[in-house]
């Protein structure tokens, strides 16, 4: 009898404690409606408190660049908080300089909206839109790279600068319960305003690239936000040095086609680095451009060619190839897109050749 009474008492006590925890959780985590003031009243948003600043802004169609989808691994989603929203978190520290910290810069994915906030963002972000699209074509380019063509459904047109990128939203698949968004450069030409094309390499274990490569089908609808980025043609430079590897070909293709279409007075050299022949793609496409346009030169190079490749083109690391073909930096600009390692190595080589940092352009993601 005593045992039964004890068990019953403990059960009742546990139930009461659980109810208290649930009530406290509801009360403490209910921040109600919060106001986000952007750029001193330029926009004022009412959002439900409790979510990240990044997702709260996105829910109101204000899209902040984010290549990692809010996991604090890209450092792109910086905003300036006019009033403090707490200390910089350890997750943000690698991306926030001392200067930025003093100016109130935070990663918006790491700031939780708990009360009214005043923030500052670049004006151009107000022009970012979310697009509903239909996949009109999926084309394999190499063993791990595919090209995706999207028809814009709503809105039906997009204005972007060649070289910019969009953030594509994945959908849940298999055991992946969440949708994520990731940044991919546009490879098509801006004059085709009803479509965009993306060139995407499969990242083993990558949530979004696995979705795009293995689950997305022609005819499916997906959304993206954009355009983002400062990687576009800048003033100056009679000769443009384009250097890419892997799916980094995407924005370079867009830039080259745009320049040729607009008949701009620029010479262009496009260096594309790959390990083996199977990693090359769009070779015929660029060879054809080379034949048709005197101001365009295409220089693919292999760093690990084997006899089976029967390769008679440039060999070696792309940095060595660039060093052989680019004598100096006079009236030249360099546009880079590829892995962080490739970009770092290229920046070093270009600096040695004489390029100033203001003549070298690349995306930070």
């Amino acid at each position, binding site marked *: 009898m005593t045992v039964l009474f004890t068990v019953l008492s403990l059960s009742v006590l546990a139930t009461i404690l659980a109810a208290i925890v649930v009530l406290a959780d509801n009360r403490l985590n209910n921040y109600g409606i919060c106001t986000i003031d952007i750029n001193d009243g330029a926009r004022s948003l009412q959002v439900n408190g409790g979510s990240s600043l990044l997702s709260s802004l996105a829910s109101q169609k204000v899209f902040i660049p984010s290549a990692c989808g809010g996991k604090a691994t890209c450092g792109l989603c910086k905003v300036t908080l006019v009033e403090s929203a707490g200390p910089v978190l*350890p997750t943000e520290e690698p991306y926030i300089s001392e200067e930025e910290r003093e100016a109130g810069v935070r990663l918006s994915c790491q700031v939780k909206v708990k009360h009214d906030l005043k923030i500052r963002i670049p004006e151009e972000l107000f022009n970012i839109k979310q697009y509903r699209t239909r996949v009109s074509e999926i084309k394999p380019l190499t063993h791990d790279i595919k090209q995706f063509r999207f028809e814009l459904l709503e809105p039906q047109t997009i204005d972007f600068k060649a070289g910019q990128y969009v953030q594509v939203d994945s959908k849940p698949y298999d055991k992946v319960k969440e949708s994520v968004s990731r940044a991919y450069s546009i490879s098509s030409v801006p004059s085709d305003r009803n479509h965009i094309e993306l060139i995407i390499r499969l990242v083993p274990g990558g949530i979004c*690239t696995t979705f795009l490569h293995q689950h997305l089908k022609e005819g499916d609808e997906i959304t993206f936000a954009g355009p983002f980025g400062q990687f576009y043609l800048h003033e100056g430079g009679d000769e443009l040095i384009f250097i890419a590897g892997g799916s980094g070909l995407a924005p370079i293709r867009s830039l080259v086609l745009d320049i040729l279409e607009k008949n701009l007075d620029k010479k262009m050299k496009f260096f594309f680095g790959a390990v083996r022949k199977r990693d090359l793609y769009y070779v015929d496409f660029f060879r054809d451009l080379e034949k048709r346009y005197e101001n365009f030169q295409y220089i693919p190079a292999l760093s690990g060619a084997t006899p089976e490749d029967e390769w008679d083109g440039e060999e070696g690391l792309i940095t060595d190839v660039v060093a052989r073909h680019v004598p100096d930096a006079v009236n030249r600009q360099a546009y880079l897109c590829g892995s962080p*390692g490739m970009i770092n190595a290229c920046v070093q080589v270009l600096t040695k050749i004489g390029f100033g940092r203001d003549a070298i352009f690349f995306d930070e993601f």
Partner: protein
Amino acid sequence: MKQGPDLKRIEDNMRSGALAGHQFLGTDTRTLADIIHQDQLLLEPLGLTHHNIAERMRYFTDQATEHPGPVFVDGKFRVEREEHKGGILCPFADNVQASKSITQVTNTETGETVTWSDLNIHLIAEHGFYEGHGAPFRVDPAKYAEVLEIKV
């Protein structure tokens, strides 16, 4: 092996696919605690520690990073690094993140190959975690020891 609530939470997070498409555990139905414990048991007869394995992996990754393109290391190991943009967070919630880049080492004497991501080095060194069976970067500790010729 008994699994505490912290490890259970981490396992749930891995299986949800919130951090990586392959969920780190592949098709493995064992608990996270069991996976780590059983890999520890596989390691002990070899006289090696997780740090021994991770140090050797880091050695090859560093070699490949310093010398882009396929590189021969110590005369017999063909090392290749596949760089990918972006980072991935450690699923053990320790605020560590690694790049998504991948290192592949082939022991040309045996023809055996092992492949790992930068995050695997941290997962092994700090958490003794080699991923679950069926996960794309799962490699048995003994296989690492054999292919990379790790000796005490």
